[in-house]
């Protein structure tokens, strides 16, 4: 069973790429694959993973370990479990420096305090000695961001970094990520299911559905002129418009990965489905100057096919 299939994307220096998808769409597996952290029996069955010109899939474990943390780092979703409860947060930040930077303990401690200050934790000299349970969820997420930034990586992967947080704290963390990104010229891969978070944070977007990237493009194009019927339906189903009106729901549910429909995985729920959709999974077609969509509607050869309206999909 493939959790992720034929996923290709690129992230440029200093850019935020947002990957948006629902549960089971493969967005987290994609992140873990980049770090080569997929747990057995899962494995990366093929592909290339170029980071600064080197294919990470060809590196031996030692070289890969150097890339993790120092080149690419990961911010996990759940700040409550991503930190080790029995070590002080300062020591956990320092650990990455001791491992990757061969810093002395004293240097590492000083740098940990600097990092806590950088992520706007008040009174960092005292907080550095705190244990995770002494901090709020938002503070813990700041500590995780500090850890991720400790070795000055060029790419930070943030997997649902704000999902466990309240909306006011979420706003602060997103603002912090944005500031850090521009201050340090980072590239950011932001994984989320929240289109609002994508709209606020991403420069470019990749939309995942059932293990594939079904659409990519600049954030404004994706929201203004979505090329894939799934993206279009997802945006249309959001609350908004006239209060009290029925929402424009997408019929059906997300398919199971071991029971995908033939052809395009979205076809049973798609209002625009036509003949080719059930035959084979569609390849990428150009859907705009910088936009691609895996949808036969954009196949130049099927221009004759009725280009269905942008109206709402059937309601449930």
């Amino acid at each position, binding site marked *: 069973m493939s959790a992720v299939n034929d996923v290709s994307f690129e992230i440029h220096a200093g850019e935020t790429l947002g990957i948006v998808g*629902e*549960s089971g769409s493969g967005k987290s597996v994609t992140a873990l694959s980049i770090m080569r952290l997929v747990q057995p029996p899962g494995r990366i069955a093929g592909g290339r993973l170029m980071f600064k010109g080197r294919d990470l899939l060809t590196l031996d474990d030692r070289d890969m370990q150097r890339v993790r943390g120092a080149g690419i780092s990961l911010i996990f979703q759940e700040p409550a479990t991503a930190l080790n409860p029995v070590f002080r947060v300062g020591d956990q930040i320092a650990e990455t420096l001791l491992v990757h930077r061969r810093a002395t303990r004293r240097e590492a401690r000083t740098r940990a305090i600097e990092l806590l200050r950088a992520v706007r934790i008040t009174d960092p000299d005292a907080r550095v000695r705190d244990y995770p349970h002494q901090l709020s969820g938002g503070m813990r997420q700041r500590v995780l961001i500090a850890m991720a930034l400790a070795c000055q990586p060029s790419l930070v992967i943030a997997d649902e970094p704000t999902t466990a947080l*309240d*909306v*006011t*704290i*979420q*706003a*602060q963390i*997103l*603002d912090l990520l944005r500031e850090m990104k521009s201050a340090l010229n980072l590239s950011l891969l932001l994984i989320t*299911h*929240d*289109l*609002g*978070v*994508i*709209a*606020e944070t991403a420069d470019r977007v990749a939309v995942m559905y059932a293990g594939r990237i079904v659409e990519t493009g600049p*954030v*404004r194009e994706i*929201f203004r002129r979505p090329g894939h019927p799934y993206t279009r*339906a*997802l*945006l249309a*189903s*959001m*609350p*908004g*418009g006239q*209060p*009290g*009106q*029925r*929402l*424009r*729901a*997408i*019929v059906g*549910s*997300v398919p199971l990965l071991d029971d995908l429909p033939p052809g395009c995985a979205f076809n049973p*729920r798609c209002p625009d489905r036509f003949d080719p959709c059930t035959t084979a999974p569609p390849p990428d077609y150009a859907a705009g100057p910088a936009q691609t969509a895996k949808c036969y509607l954009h196949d130049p050869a099927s221009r004759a096919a009725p280009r269905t309206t942008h109206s709402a999909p059937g*309601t*449930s």
Partner: protein
Amino acid sequence: MSALLEVSHLVKHFTRDAGLFRAGTRVTAVDDVSFAIDEGETFGLVGESGSGKTTTGRCLLRLIEPSSGEVRFRGENVIDFPKRRLRDARRDMQIVFQDPYSSLNPRMRARAIVEEPLVIHKLGARAERDARVAELFRLVGLNPAHLDRYPHQFSGGQRQRIGLARALALNPSFVILDEPVSALDVSVQAQVVNLLMDLQEQLRLTYLFIAHDLRLVEHVCSRVAVMFLGKIVEMGPTASLFAAPQHPYTKALLSAIPVPDPDAPRRRILLDPASVNRNAALREVAAGHFAAI
């Protein structure tokens, strides 16, 4: 329209017993909360984790016993009801929980889950109950052919429909929806929201809608109360409250909602704790719109 439910001065303390290294502490989770819900309306209760919104909802059904205060349902104070009377009252007041994965017993078939309230309240003979369960299944958009499946054989959205069928089994007039769609996939949320709105119209239901998704609350609720640290700090008609929030916390909360529009203007308002007067009482700032400022 008249008030179906009137909550006055509801308080809930939780005490943490003294431990080996600490003194006992008392936390006020719900702090003098009063509101009324009209028949047929959807009343939203919003706030962040720890604000007391879920505890408030559970106190109304006495799933958690409040420390003090009144909950009048059709004019009668539910808090005074003896056990048997309370059980009867609960036929009319039901709750749908947030997580359709943990709120359904994994060892029970869907049929037994939906039927259970009928059995507990000794309603109908076997055949009547069977017919009612099938009717409820259809009502929430499920296929009665799947009645003998177990919860894990349903998707998240379908499980939430089962929870809803169970809540509706006894023909309640009032349903508490505690984060009813927040555990569901985005593409499925809208289906369940539509179902809730359809059922409300069809069955003349009154909802207390507890949620942290403010965009959704704005869409489905006629009135909203905002909770902060156990108190209602602002309450009013949804349109008025979202257009002109008055309390510093409401302003901060509304400005933090991520808008799914890359071109939307963003003006983040941060909450300055000094600007919150914890002792201010609610006062009317516009028609039906109250704020504790």
